[in-house]
């Protein structure tokens, strides 16, 4: 067993990929908030869950490395009179959720590291 695979195994790849996607999601939410008063703006959503599940199911880690998610338009909610369908409280909620998720991932990573550290010592 290589030392490499001790740290950079499947779990770490998934963890760091999720962190990357979470950052991209933060950008998407920021963009929705920035356009909260833009006439005709349809809110964007970063869609990655389904595809990521499929890739992990296939166990193709190289494909996961290149995976970036898809930016999709979300016109499910009711639009205002100017055609804009951004709801600020909803975006705030998404942002909070995303922040907590990111914290969780960072915590998971540092816990993994401390487990490996205690094994080395």
């Amino acid at each position: 067993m290589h030392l490499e695979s001790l740290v950079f195994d499947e779990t770490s790849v998934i963890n760091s990929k999720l962190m990357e996607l979470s950052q991209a999601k933060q950008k998407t939410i920021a963009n929705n908030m920035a356009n909260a008063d833009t006439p005709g703006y349809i809110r964007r959503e970063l869609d990655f869950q389904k595809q990521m599940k499929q890739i992990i199911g296939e166990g193709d880690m190289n494909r996961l490395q290149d995976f970036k998610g898809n930016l999709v338009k979300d016109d499910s909610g009711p639009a205002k009179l100017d055609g804009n369908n951004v709801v600020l409280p909803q975006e705030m909620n998404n942002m909070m959720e995303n922040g907590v998720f990111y914290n969780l991932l960072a915590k998971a990573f540092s816990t993994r590291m401390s487990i490996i550290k205690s094994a080395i010592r």
Partner: protein
Amino acid sequence: MSIDLIPGSKISSTALRAERMRMEIVANNLANVNSAGSNEDDVFKRKIAVFDSVFKDEVNDNPASELGGVKLKEIATDERGGVEVYAPYHPKANKETGMIMMPNISPIEEMLDMITATRAYEANLSIMQEGKKMAEKTITMFK
């Protein structure tokens, strides 16, 4: 491309800039609430900020990097008619009727716009704060 440690900070800063400009337009409208004229063409007209979303065409396969935030597309003019007021002593008053034209600005509308701009500014600031927290988590991950 510089490093992008805080996710969404550039996008939020475009929004902050746009909201600042909207605030300036509101201030300008309110400042001109008494700028009377002699007729419809002479009088100050209310200005409206029109926003437009920005999408960059980057040669990059990362979908989130094409998001560019918002920009002030144009400063449109509100074409509603002004209010005629009887003021024969006014230098701009119509010699026959004694009427002057007041601008089509309603202080209530401007206050509403001001509050909307302030709240939008706050919302974008909190996005930036959350992004900063994420960056802090990233750099203290190994502690």
